[in-house]
């Protein structure tokens, strides 16, 4: 795809652009200590927003999906109401606390009927009908509708906040990172595979996994390495890491190597989306994507701290999301988003994309529980980060700073 003869090999110097982050070894305590995790829950997680789906999942009035937020043990119901607005509620019947809607997705004719005692709620969350109401002792229907959960939409993604009064707005939470990546055709990639796994490791290790490419030549010798190391980039270095507040973006250097035989079929005969090149774009690339405007760019890892990152190329993207469950336990969710296929051949291209990303992430994840064991047993007390592992150093810096601010806030209260 990039046909220039001698692309420049990326150098060292990313960390030096952000002197406040430092260069020394980093203490690993934040990766395993239970007291730190508890503090993170209050200072970071309860103050953040969480992506739970996309507007394309509920195109028509009455369409709904439900979602469980494992970190907060919250059940959420998202639906499109009679006016076409997206609403999000705590999926909890106000009678006895069962879920109001038990299905993962579907269409409601206008009422959500609890399968416990049959209380029903409309698409705006109002308590519409109490079955055998005369047996109650003056329940005020107007005060017993479904409880809304704070919800916002960015670029078609539906986000919720676990706090009734969010610490910050969704717009402020996303900040410059959100502004600079808006305009990518997020909604055009309307088809997705979603998988998940419970991983016995701290949430930061899940974030770390795709966030450095120092490991690429060693951990991915046959899969990702051939393109990312091509044309003399033998150390598999990045083009850049760009910090925006708590968020960050890694831009990946890549030159097309010789594809494997089935990749060749997918790329050249089935329009596989990971192979869309910049010259073929039908949209203008936002300033926050391929921010260095390198012709040797193929992929950005766009991180929205603390729990979601997008591996994004010109024609498709993968969302990596972590749900913390404890100091050394997390749920990882992966969604591979691709553009809709028209022909049956393009369906093959989609499958090739999904299988490649899944297997490469399985290569990445081989390390996570092993690292966590070394952390939990005290066998590794410090991490030494390479210049091109700067994203991990930045995460350490951000977490440490937020926890220190929180301590001061608590002391002053």
């Amino acid at each position, binding site marked *: 795809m990039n046909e220039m003869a001698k692309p420049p090999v990326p150098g060292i110097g990313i960390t030096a652009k952000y002197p406040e982050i430092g260069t020394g070894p980093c203490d690993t305590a934040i990766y395993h200590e239970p007291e730190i995790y508890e503090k993170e829950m209050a200072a970071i997680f309860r103050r953040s927003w969480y992506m739970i789906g996309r507007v394309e999942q509920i195109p028509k009035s009455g369409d709904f999906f439900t979602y469980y937020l494992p970190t907060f043990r919250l059940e959420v119901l998202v639906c499109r109401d009679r006016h076409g607005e997206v609403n999000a509620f705590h999926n909890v019947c106000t009678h006895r606390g069962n879920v109001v809607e038990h299905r993962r997705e579907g269409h409601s004719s206008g009422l959500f009927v609890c399968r416990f005692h049959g209380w029903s709620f409309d698409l705006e969350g109002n308590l519409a009908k109490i079955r055998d109401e005369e047996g109650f002792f003056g329940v005020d229907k107007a005060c017993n509708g479904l409880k809304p959960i704070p919800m916002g939409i960015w670029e078609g993604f539906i986000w919720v906040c676990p706090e009734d009064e969010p610490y910050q707005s969704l717009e402020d939470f996303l900040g410059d990172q959100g502004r600079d990546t808006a305009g990518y055709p997020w909604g055009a990639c*309307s*088809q*997705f*595979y*979603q*998988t*998940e*796994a*419970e*991983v016995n490791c701290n949430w930061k290790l899940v974030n770390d996994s795709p966030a450095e490419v120092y490991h690429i030549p060693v951990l991915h010798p*046959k*899969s990702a390495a051939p393109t990312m190391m091509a044309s003399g980039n033998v150390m598999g270095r990045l083009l850049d890491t760009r910090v925006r507040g708590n968020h960050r973006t890694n831009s990946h250097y890549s030159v097309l190597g010789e594809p*494997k*035989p*089935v*990749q060749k*079929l*997918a790329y050249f*005969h*089935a329009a596989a989306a990971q192979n869309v090149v910049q010259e073929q774009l039908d949209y203008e690339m936002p300033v926050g994507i391929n921010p260095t405007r390198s012709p040797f760019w193929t992929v950005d890892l766009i991180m929205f701290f603390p729990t979601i990152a997008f591996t994004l190329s010109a024609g498709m993207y993968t969302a990596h999301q972590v749900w913390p469950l404890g100091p050394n336990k997390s749920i990882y*969710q992966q*969604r591979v988003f*691709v553009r*809709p*296929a*028209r*022909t*049956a*051949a393009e*369906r*093959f291209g*989609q*499958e*090739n994309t*999904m*299988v*490649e990303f*899944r*297997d490469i*992430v*399985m*290569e*990445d*994840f*081989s390390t*996570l529980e092993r690292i966590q064991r070394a952390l939990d047993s005290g066998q590794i007390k410090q991490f030494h980060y390479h210049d091109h592992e700067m994203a991990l150093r930045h995460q350490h810096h951000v977490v440490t700073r937020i926890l220190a601010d929180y301590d001061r806030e608590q002391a002053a209260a």
Partner: protein
Amino acid sequence: MTDHSLPEGFADLERFVPEWVQPDAEHRLAKRLSTDMDAIKAFYGAMLARGEAALAWLRGHELGTLPPEGENLLRLMLMLAEVAPAVEWYNDQRVYDGFPVERLRYIHQISDTAAQV
């Protein structure tokens, strides 16, 4: 199965039907993990040789309109995508030294054959 479970011109691939025709991605992964590498390589080799021809046929057919034999041909090609890393990257059904892929749960899948546009 009749003797025409694949479109005309693909009789040489009939021997892979129905064993390698799986209903969705989750079953394709299970098939890969439960099949020995000799059988995977035999399937991979035969399918790769006919890959361009199969994709040419599939390119002429829109999702949502496939006849049953076209669905079978598409699902054989989707199975080729599934086993490709086993042959090309790992020489093993499993991701070499990888996280156990059977711990991954499929939550949402793209339909193999339904129209998407």
